[in-house]
């Protein structure tokens, strides 16, 4: 069953077209990894899906409903939640308040305060601490927990290891394993290619705002993906034609 369908999506980053005709489907329960160089349009794509960024063309169909023009908070209510790049916690508020805010959408489901505390045990100790005072890893765990509190049907994870120590990244991914086990539909943007490939079912390579390659993660080698990273494949094809 298709959970999210994106058809010919366009979006601008300022005056630059950052997403240029992206189309893909994601089936319920799948995890899709988006890879590509900086500036390939991955973050703009996720923000457009979440409603933080307007689409200038194309359609976003979420579980059969066209949500292209919906404001972000309404998408969260329908079950589409983004963990934004840079985490974007409310720094003056406690971890608990940040998580409780995540439940504003009022969606029933398996994710509750208790379950988040179970999945992210590192948060228990800092429960009443201000989010702005936490380490990067703790902040990221809070940000993911906050998104999960909305009981999303599709979770968008943007650069969750950015600025974290390798140990903190490990910690975050260990916690994410429970998402994988629960078969939460996920779209992941991650710089670390090995992690992207091992964590996902499918992988899509973005280059200059377009998806240039797509396949099953298990079937794609690291070198294959790397070749698409900077358009080497295309350059090689052009050379062959010449």
């Amino acid at each position, binding site marked *: 069953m298709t959970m999210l369908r994106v058809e010919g999506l366009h979006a601008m980053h300022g005056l630059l077209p950052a997403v240029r005709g992206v189309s893909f489907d994601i089936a319920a329960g799948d995890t899709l990894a988006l890879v590509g160089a900086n500036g390939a349009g991955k973050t703009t794509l996720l923000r457009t899906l*979440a*409603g*933080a960024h307007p689409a200038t063309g194309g359609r976003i169909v979420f579980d059969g409903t066209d949500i292209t023009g919906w*404001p*972000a*908070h*309404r998408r*969260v*209510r329908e079950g589409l*939640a*983004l963990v*934004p790049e840079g985490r*974007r*916690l*409310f*720094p*003056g*508020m406690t971890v608990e*308040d940040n998580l*409780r*805010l*995540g439940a*504003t*959408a009022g969606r029933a489901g398996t994710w509750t305060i208790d379950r988040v505390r179970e999945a992210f045990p590192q948060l228990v100790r800092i429960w009443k601490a201000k989010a702005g005072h936490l380490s990067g890893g703790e902040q990221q765990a809070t940000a993911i927990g*906050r*998104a999960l509190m*909305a009981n999303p049907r599709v979770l968008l994870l943007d650069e969750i290891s950015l600025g974290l120590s390798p140990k903190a990244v490990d910690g975050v991914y260990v916690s994410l394993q429970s998402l994988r086990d629960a078969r939460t539909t996920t779209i992941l943007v991650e710089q670390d290619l090995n992690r992207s490939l091992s964590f996902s079912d499918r992988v899509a390579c973005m280059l200059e705002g377009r998806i240039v390659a797509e396949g099953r993660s298990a079937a794609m080698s690291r070198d294959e993906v790397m070749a698409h990273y900077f358009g080497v494949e295309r350059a090689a094809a052009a050379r062959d034609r010449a």
Partner: protein
Amino acid sequence: MSAIANLALQGTLLGGYYALLASGLSFLFGVMRIINLAHGSLAVVAGYALWFLAERLGIGPFVGILVVMPLMGLLGWILHRIIFERSMRAGDLVPILSTFGLATVADNVMFQKFGADTRSLAPYIDTFAYDSWQLPGDLYIGQLSVLVFGLAVVVLGGLHLLLARTSLGRQIRAAAEDPEAALLTGIDTRRIYGIATAIAVMTVALAGMALGMRATFDPYGGSQQLVFAFEAVVIGGAGSLWGTLVGGVVLGIAQSIGAQLNPQGFLIAGHAVFLVVLVARLYASDRLAGILRALRARTG
């Protein structure tokens, strides 16, 4: 000794009025970073609404406020939709300009409708306007002043509890800290801002009632009230609710002392304290920034 005690007491009670007046201004600035220059004029609007109910329909201000408060809340919600929301999108300066325009329009509409006569709510509350209690040490306190001070504490305390303890308050704080992150968390920030503005303007209704009961007002009296509210907010620290109470009391005491020194000193003393605090704050934040920079340079 008794004179000094009296000065402090009357100044504090006067400060209660300023705190009540300033609470809506402080709340709105804290939540939406909007400096509402129509704040004083809205208080006068509420005053006229109460006067109208009392004069034409025979409804006393204490009952009338039950009608006027929700109406002012509705007015606040509408103002957010048609003025604040749009002007906020256009940058930091536009809300100041548009609320200045709103104040001018409100003042002139009131002038058209009610004329230049000075009005007061005092005639509609019997002797409550000047009844007082005697305290030991030959001190007298006006019952109305005590009520207004109590209202200020209740309003500021209520706003504080709302922000700290309720789900709505949590959403308001989140929308204040990071509007986009709030949207992405599922918070309808447009609705939240509308509610916050409605609450702020409801407190203005109470301030308008206090203004009308303890003194007089006329269509162009709003700007003077805005100045008092603004001074109380700045003295107490912008956006801090309990600071607003302190700011109001400091302003009230300063004005009372000024009036004691010279009949003209009432306003000047208040303005002087405001300016001293303002300059001290700027200087302190400058120095603080300098110290932090130096520290960072040393550690980095």
